[in-house]
C-alpha cells in the first residue's frame, strides 16, 4: 500500500454568503459572490496534512471535479500544504454519483491508502460522494468522523452519530468523511501562497476519464423557503409565560 492520501474538495458559495434564489427560479444567485473550499473538505484536507506531518503519510494529493475556476481553490489547498493537485475539469455541475466515478478513476491511478472528503457540501447538502466512492471502490467507509487514528493497515475512526459517538475500525484503504469537530483548519500564510504557485497542478477533463457521465436528476425549479410569520416581543418573563399559556403550550 502507498502512503498517499487523496483529498476531495469542492468549490462552493462561501458559508457567510446570504443565499438568494434567482427570480426566474432557475437556480441561486452565484454571480459575484465569494467562493471557497467547502468547509468540511477543508477539515478533511487539514486532517490529511496533520497525518503527513506526524509521519504517517508521505504525500497528500488534493483533487476536485469542476470548472477551470476551481484552480483557485486547489491553489489554496496547495498553500495549506497539499503536495500536488489534480483538477478534473467538467463544464457543468455534476451529480455526486458522477463525482464518485471520477474519484474512483483517480483512486485507481493514485492508489491512496486513504481518501478523505468532507461529510457534505454546504451548497447541495447531499452528503453522498464519499459513501458512493466507497461503494464503487468496494472498500470500507467511515462517515462523519470527529477523530481519526491510523494504525497498522487500519484506521480507527470516531463518528458523530445521532446517538452519540461511535468508534469503528476499518481496514485500509478506506474512505473517511470529515465532520466539524475533527480539527480546526490552519490559516494560509502569504509565503505559502507564493510557494503553492510552484507546486504541480495537473488538469484532466472529465470526458478523458471515459466514465458514465449520465445525470439522473433534473433540477426543475428553485424556490425560496416559506417564511415564518413575524413574531411578537414580550417585555419580561411573566409576559412570556402568559403568551405560552395563550398558545396552550404550557
Amino acid at each position, binding site marked *: 500500500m502507498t502512503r498517499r492520501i487523496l483529498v476531495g474538495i469542492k468549490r462552493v458559495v462561501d458559508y457567510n454568503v446570504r443565499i438568494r434564489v434567482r427570480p426566474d427560479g432557475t437556480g441561486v444567485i452565484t454571480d459575484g459572490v465569494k467562493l471557497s473550499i467547502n468547509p468540511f473538505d477543508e477539515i478533511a484536507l487539514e486532517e490529511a496534512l496533520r497525518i503527513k506531518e506526524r509521519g504517517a503519510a508521505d504525500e497528500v494529493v488534493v483533487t476536485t471535479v469542476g470548472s477551470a475556476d476551481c484552480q483557485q481553490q486547489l491553489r489554496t489547498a496547495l498553500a495549506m500544504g497539499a503536495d500536488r493537485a489534480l483538477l478534473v475539469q467538467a463544464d457543468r455541475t455534476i451529480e455526486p454519483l458522477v463525482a464518485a466515478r471520477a474519484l474512483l478513476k483517480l483512486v485507481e491511478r493514485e492508489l491512496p491508502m486513504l481518501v478523505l472528503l468532507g461529510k457534505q457540501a454546504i451548497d447541495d*447538502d447531499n452528503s453522498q460522494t464519499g459513501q458512493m466512492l466507497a461503494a464503487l471502490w468496494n472498500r470500507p467507509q467511515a462517515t462523519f468522523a470527529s477523530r481519526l487514528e491510523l494504525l497498522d493497515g487500519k484506521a480507527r475512526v470516531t463518528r458523530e452519530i445521532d446517538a452519540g459517538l461511535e468508534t469503528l475500525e476499518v481496514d485500509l484503504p478506506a474512505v473517511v468523511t470529515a465532520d466539524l469537530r475533527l480539527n480546526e483548519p490552519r490559516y494560509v500564510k502569504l509565503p505559502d501562497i507564493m510557494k503553492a504557485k510552484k507546486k504541480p497542478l495537473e488538469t484532466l477533463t472529465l470526458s478523458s476519464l471515459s466514465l458514465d457521465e449520465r445525470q439522473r436528476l433534473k433540477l426543475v425549479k428553485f424556490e425560496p423557503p416559506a417564511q415564518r410569520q413575524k413574531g411578537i416581543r414580550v417585555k419580561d418573563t411573566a409576559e*412570556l409565560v402568559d403568551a405560552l399559556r395563550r398558545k396552550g403550550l404550557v
Partner: protein
Amino acid sequence: MSVQVLIVAEHDGANLNPSTAKSITCARAIPGSEITVAVFAADATAIASQAAQLAGVSRVLKVEKPANERALAEVLAPQVVAVAGPYSHVFGPSTTFGKDLMPRVAALLDTAQISDIMAVESPTRFRRPIYAGNAIVTVEVDGDSKIVGTVRTASFEAAPKTGSATIESAALDVELPNRTRFVSVSAAKTNRPDLQTAARVVSGGRALGSANGFEILYSLADKFGAAVGASRAAVDAGYAPNELQVGQTGKIIAPELYIAIGISGAIQHLTGIKDARTIVAINKDAEAPIFEVADIGLVGDLFQIVPQLEELLAGGSAAR
C-alpha cells in the same frame, strides 16, 4: 399499477427508531404506493412487530444475521441491494444511519440519490432543501432506474400504529465483508425525551458560558418534560455533547415548542428548527438573527430569565 416502496428500518437492536414511522408517511404520499419495511438485525423479532403495526405498511421483511448486530453501511448495503429487486423506490431516513447507508446503496444500484426529501410531488418528483434550507429545489428523476432517497424526518408526521402487516423472513445468500468492525459507542444515558422526537425542546448557545451554565437548561427542561438541544457553538465549546447539536450538520427537528436560549441564530442553526411550531427566543442582543424567526422574543439576561421561567412554569409566584 402500484408503486413498490422499500423502507430500510432504523433501530438500535431492540426498538424501531421513530424515523422509520416518518419515512413511511413520506412513502404513503406517493400515489399508489405499496410499502415494505426491511429490518436488518441480529434478532429482528421485536423490531419487525413494531414495524408491522405502522399504518400503510403491507409487509415487513426480516433479514437476521449476526453481522447485522450493528448498523455498518458496508455490511448492510449489499443486503439492501439483494432485497431491492422488486422495488422502484428504496427509502431510508435522513438520520446519520440513513445518510451513511443509503448513498452506498444508491451507488451499488447504479442510481442517484435524492437526499432529505421534504415533499412528494409525484412518484418521480420530490422537493428538498439545499444551501442549509435557504432554497428549496424540485427534483425530477430521469429514466427508469430505481429511486433511492432519504426522508427529511422533520417534514413528516409519524405513521400511526393502526396497521397489521404480515412479517416474512428473507434468507439472503450474500457475502458480507469483515473490513469494518464496531468498536464502541458512547452515549450519555438520559431519562429526558429524545431530542429528535420531543414535543418540547429547550436549547442553549454559547451565551450559557460553560458546561456548568448548561445545568440551568437541564433543570428548566426537566420542569416541563422537554428535551435539551444545543447550538454548534455550544457543542464546539464543550458545553454540551455532540448528539445535542441542532442545525444543518446536527439534528433537524420539528417540536411543538422550541425555546432558544442564548443562541444568536446562525442560518446553519435556523435550518434545524424552521419546522418547529412555536419558536421562543431569549437573548440579550436585541439584534440577534434568532429574533427574525422567533414567534415570541424576550430580550434580557438569560441567567435571570431562565430561573424565573422555571419558577413560573412550576406554578410558583411571579418573579417579576
